[in-house]
């Protein structure tokens, strides 16, 4: 687990569901094939309606039309991020696009589990809604030791909740690594 994650922020709103994270029609690509799996990066967050994609202005694609990876590393969202289907393609798509963490005020539980158990992306919870105080493109940094989100563009800091129960699995890199470390496999 990386202790520091630094990069550009991509801001979206509440209740971002798995169809917005990766629309169902794209679920047919292989997750293993190196040529095909790149499409998950291309279509990551492509289901977010344009006016609210990349707040506050909107109309910003997470991944450019001809690209397979995103210029944004940290996704900032409101409540109930990842609601909807159980598809693991959702945290996977964000990882393939190059994102490393989501900071949301709350998560839908299956997305949260998938992100952690698959070791795809780290789901941090913010104490308050950050979607109105951070703008898409701001340079932000997550300090995993102090559980802080630092916005270098504005100079503001925001506290994050501790990872708690799942920290051991996040640190191990996923449920298989965790189980192996603990002699369960």
């Amino acid at each position, binding site marked *: 687990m990386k202790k520091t994650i630094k990069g550009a922020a991509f801001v979206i709103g509440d209740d971002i569901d798995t169809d917005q994270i990766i629309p169902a*029609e794209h679920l047919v690509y292989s997750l293993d094939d190196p040529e095909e799996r790149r499409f998950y990066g291309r279509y990551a967050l492509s289901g977010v309606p344009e006016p609210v994609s990349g707040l506050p202005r909107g109309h910003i694609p997470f991944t450019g039309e001809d690209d397979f990876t995103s210029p944004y590393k940290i996704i900032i969202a409101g409540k109930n991020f990842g609601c909807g289907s*159980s*598809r693991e393609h959702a945290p996977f798509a964000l990882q393939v696009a190059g994102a490393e963490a989501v900071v949301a005020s709350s998560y839908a539980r299956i997305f949260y589990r998938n992100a952690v*158990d698959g070791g795809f992306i780290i789901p941090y919870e913010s104490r308050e809604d950050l979607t109105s105080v951070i703008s898409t493109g701001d340079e932000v940094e997550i300090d995993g030791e102090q559980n802080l989100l630092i916005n270098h563009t504005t100079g503001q800091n925001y506290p994050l909740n501790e990872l708690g129960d799942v920290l051991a699995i996040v640190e191990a890199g996923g449920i298989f690594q965790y*189980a192996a470390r603990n002699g369960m496999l």
Partner: protein
Amino acid sequence: MAMTLTEKILARASGRSHVDAGETVWVDVDILMTHDVCGPPTIGIFKREFGDDARVWDKNKVVIIPDHYIFTADKYANRNVDILRAFAAEQDLPHFYDVGGDRYKGVCHVAMPEEGFTRPGDVLFGTDSHTCTAGAFGQFATGIGNTDAGFILGTGKLWVKVPETMRFIFEGEIPPWIMAKDLILQIIGDIGVDGGTYRAMEFAGDGVMRMDMEGRMTLTNMVIEGGGKNGVVEPDEVTFDYVRKRTDYPFTPLYNDPDARYHSVRVYRSEELQPMVAKPHSPDNKATVQEVRNTRITRAYIGSCTGGKITDFEAAARIIKGHQVGVDTFVVPATTLVRDQLSTTFHDGKSLRQIFEDAGAHIGEASCAACLGGPSDTFGRLQGEEICISTTNRNFPGRMGSKKAQVYLASPYTVAASAITGKITDPREYLNIPTESQGVLS
């Protein structure tokens, strides 16, 4: 120490005499279910982690039901079914319901009870968020991702955090124009799409216990739309009767202790319930049908795991019989059994199939079809700016195929009445029940 039904199941499955809500426990899994979208990546993870020659932990506990992208020319979608087929053959799996043969079923959450896999007191995990449907049978059932499912395939175990239980009690007889879908849309509207996050949602009271299994399944199916981990109804004779007709497999039903602790209890008076819709674009965007009546629609859809069971079609047929639909109307039986029942179930001397055909509706093959959009040639898929009223469970932007479309969720009664008029219509108008008589309309 007193426990809820959900706590008791997780205690039993983790080999403990007692668990508390909030604890993380490792449970033994009774059934793992997967389908054509999440099955192939699950298999990929299983092989990557346990080796190419690995065997599943218990082949009798693995159920594979392709249902999502079935009747399509999409080559990737068809490849997924090929992967399932090869895996089922290699592992000699008895519970694989292949496409194209007699064993093909259709939507997994309706096929699971039909085949006797939803047993009271058991633990079921499935790679689909609506796996919670099986809670109607007093089972602990919840959706997981591919990594967790791959882990179970190899070990038969998974960690789970014991949820607190929210109780929803419906007191008194439910009026005959109200369906289970109205109850759950009301609840989700009240608590919001994250109101049940991490929690069990239990449905109780005589209004619920008088429902048949299919009505109860409509309730538990949509627990995930409130963010819930699992939905549950205490098993009773209705449950046992349904399950025993379909399997000889032994099970041990569990119940709430009388002094079990709940996160919260909400009591509804059944007589006050109204026909409900969820407006675009969220299942918690509730309104009564009266509040949105006469809203123009351009399509009606009756199908899916929550709204494509035989009782859903019986309800729709009761309204549609003798009428023509005024908008494009799609009828999609959840499973092949339901498809057959359309021909063998009669209303006033006519089969349901005949009623829908005479009314001008399009009848599709058993599958998920347009419930989740799917490849562009999917039956009933929304392609443009349709305004659709649907018995399905989600109306997020783009869910049924087009981001520009609008979807209203409603009961089979309400969808059928609206299909006739082309406007959102109170089913009481077609059930000869005056809408004014209720006295609670504002």
